[in-house]
């Protein structure tokens, strides 16, 4: 075990997988100098410029090259600096990458990863650099989606994504790059599709993803002081979605609050709420509640961003409302 930051854990995963499989290559803006979020420093020194490619400022070119590289037999890891920029490359991501395996009858598979920073985190990046884009991607069948919440998962889930035979988008919350945590040394791989129950509880289930997992934990701490026992589940991946674990938990607690950073007018929490309302109906003691970001473009001012995004107090208010 080593105490690493999120960004160091990403670098550790890349180094682990590049050392293990020489077909793994990196491409993106400024990845050779180490990346603007410092997730790739030194990799070009160890693996050479043939495997760590700097690209022009064109997200379309990046994901298009990654697609071609994957078709050609490599296992590319493309960096999209800000997930907001997926907006410029949906044709390739949604229409090509997500559908190639299906439309070729399984003859062509694309073992590629697109990763990059996502979400707000109170850093004041503003409306075009702070969005939670994971729910955009979830609308497109054919893409796997991972959203790690801890340094350990930053390493394990990225390694797991790289070993997938199909395209995976990894959304790295930029508010977690600087957080530290224990990360297993050596080969550390987390398979996609298994949620993690951080703490067990009996009164309510709080489901979070990436940055909102910490919000759920903070809320659970305060609720414990009030005598309310909250179970906290980190979903870890949206596709595959670990519905079974959430249903198991709700069967015990009978109440569910889902915390999503993205705007509540749509989003993965709505999909999960609908599934639980259907398959878990007879276990519910209260309506499934969602605590989401407000449906507005994210403000750049820090205090306003805090106002818009979910926080522990709003989670606690939701729990009180249902008990």
């Amino acid at each position, binding site marked *: 075990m080593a105490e690493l930051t999120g960004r160091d854990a990403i670098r550790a995963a890349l180094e682990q997988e590049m050392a293990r499989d020489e077909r793994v290559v990196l491409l993106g803006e400024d990845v050779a100098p180490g990346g603007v979020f410092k997730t790739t420093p030194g990799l070009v020194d160890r693996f050479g410029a043939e495997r760590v490619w700097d690209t022009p400022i064109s997200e379309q070119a990046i994901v298009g090259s990654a697609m071609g590289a994957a078709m050609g037999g490599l296992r590319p890891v493309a960096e999209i600096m800000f997930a907001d920029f997926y907006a410029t490359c949906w044709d390739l991501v949604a229409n090509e990458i997500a559908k190639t395996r299906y439309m070729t009858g399984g003859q062509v598979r694309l073992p590629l990863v697109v990763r990059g920073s996502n979400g707000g985190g109170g850093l004041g990046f503003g409306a075009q650099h702070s969005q939670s884009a994971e729910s955009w991607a979830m609308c497109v069948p054919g893409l796997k989606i991972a959203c790690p919440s801890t340094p350990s998962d930053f390493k394990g889930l990225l390694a797991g994504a790289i070993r997938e035979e199909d395209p995976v988008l990894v959304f790295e919350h930029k508010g977690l790059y600087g957080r530290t945590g224990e990360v297993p040394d050596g080969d550390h791989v987390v398979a996609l599709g298994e949620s993690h129950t951080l703490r067990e509880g009996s009164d309510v289930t709080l489901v979070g993803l990436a940055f909102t997992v910490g919000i759920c934990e903070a809320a659970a701490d305060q609720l414990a002081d009030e005598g309310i026992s909250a179970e906290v589940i980190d979903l870890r991946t949206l596709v595959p979605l670990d519905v079974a674990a959430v249903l198991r938990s709700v069967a015990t607690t009978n109440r569910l609050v889902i915390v999503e950073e993205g705007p509540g007018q749509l989003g993965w929490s709505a999909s999960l709420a609908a599934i639980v309302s259907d398959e878990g109906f007879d276990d519910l003691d*209260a309506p499934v509640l969602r605590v989401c970001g407000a449906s507005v473009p994210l403000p750049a001012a820090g205090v306003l961003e805090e106002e818009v995004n979910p926080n522990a107090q709003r989670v606690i208010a939701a729990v009180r409302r249902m008990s």
Partner: protein
Amino acid sequence: MPAVNMPRLSDSMESGVIVSWLVSDGESVESGAPLVEIETDKATMVYEAPAAGVLRIEVQEGETADVGAQLATLHGDASGSDAGSASDGGSASDRGSASDRGSASDGGGGEKPVQVAEGATTEGGSADPDPKSTSEPATASGSNGAGTRERIIASPVARRLAAQAGVDLGTLRGTGPRGRIVKRDVQAAQAAAPEPSAAPEASAAREPSAPEPPADRVGDGGEVQKLTRVQQVIARRMSESHEVVPDFSLTVEVDMAALLELRARMRAEADEQPIPSVTDFVVKASALALRRTPRANGSYRDGAWQLHDPVSVGLAVAAQESLLVPAVRDADRLSLGEIARRTRELARRARDGRLTPAELDGATFTVSNLGMFGIDRFVAIVNAPQAAILAVGAVGDRVVAHEGAPAIRPRMEMTLSCDHRILYGADAAQFLAAIRDGLQRPTRLLLG
């Protein structure tokens, strides 16, 4: 700081009495939550909080205030309602909401007897917004029971657990948001009543996490028992009926010799089939008389006589410290044997708390028999909006004049209580005589 003003709960209302504040002074309340019980000239209704906030009461319980007068204020936004709360703000706080909710028919809660929740008390007034309720009278019992079509608000898991444990949701008091019956309420009822047949007392046991209510004691050391919803409904509807319905009663004595003889013959000759009870004969005789007396099978509503087509005779059944009135539908068309089978089934299901809303619905007349307790005669309270209720006493030997000489004959008294707005004295007398004649010539009941 929103004010809570005395709402106009009926067209004729000019002032109202604060019966009870359902939220204590200084407590926070959510928008749409039951706030205060207000007694009007017509009924007692629950008024919901028009906004969220901390309650400051200005008019105390028992006091009267004019429509529009300020009753309380709601300070600030008390319970941190998050962004999502707007979506459930649909619990309209205007005066229509209580009766709107009251008129909702049972959407699917299906298998349980349906009870009246707070607020379903506008019927009898002129403001009933539900056209259906004018054609389908509610099934509250006259001298006793109650139960109408209002949906029970209970969470899915509470419904499932209650069904598994045989707990009647209608007997529970919900402690969840807006009075929703939640899991802990069912668990408390189970804990309080290990025998499924015993009456659950919702306040008897709670989960440790729930705040323990202060023990209510009477000044003399006795205890104060909170009413279940059904008991609340019975109390309210009976007072309403007693206050509103101009009633009168008629009594006849029935010679039961022929009927008892017929029963004895049935008992001797029937195989496995249940022998119709005296009550079953009364149901059949009443049903045939109702068929011939449309206004006895009707309702006085909104200044009109509603003459119902089906003849459905409700039977008052004591159940779980409560009273239910399951209906024998189309009793005029059923044979005595079929009535006997149905009344046994209905009584059993009533005692088990397993009557369906359909079985509790739609009686057009009620029979209440206390004869099994040795009661000779009693006067029942009309079960509005039904026109009349028949109170049946015990069959007993009496010395009477018979064919010119004293004789000992089995006799039974029946007292009919009537709503004079629809059933007048002479009509009622003929109706009651028709029931008596049917019972005194019971072979007619086999043919009818």
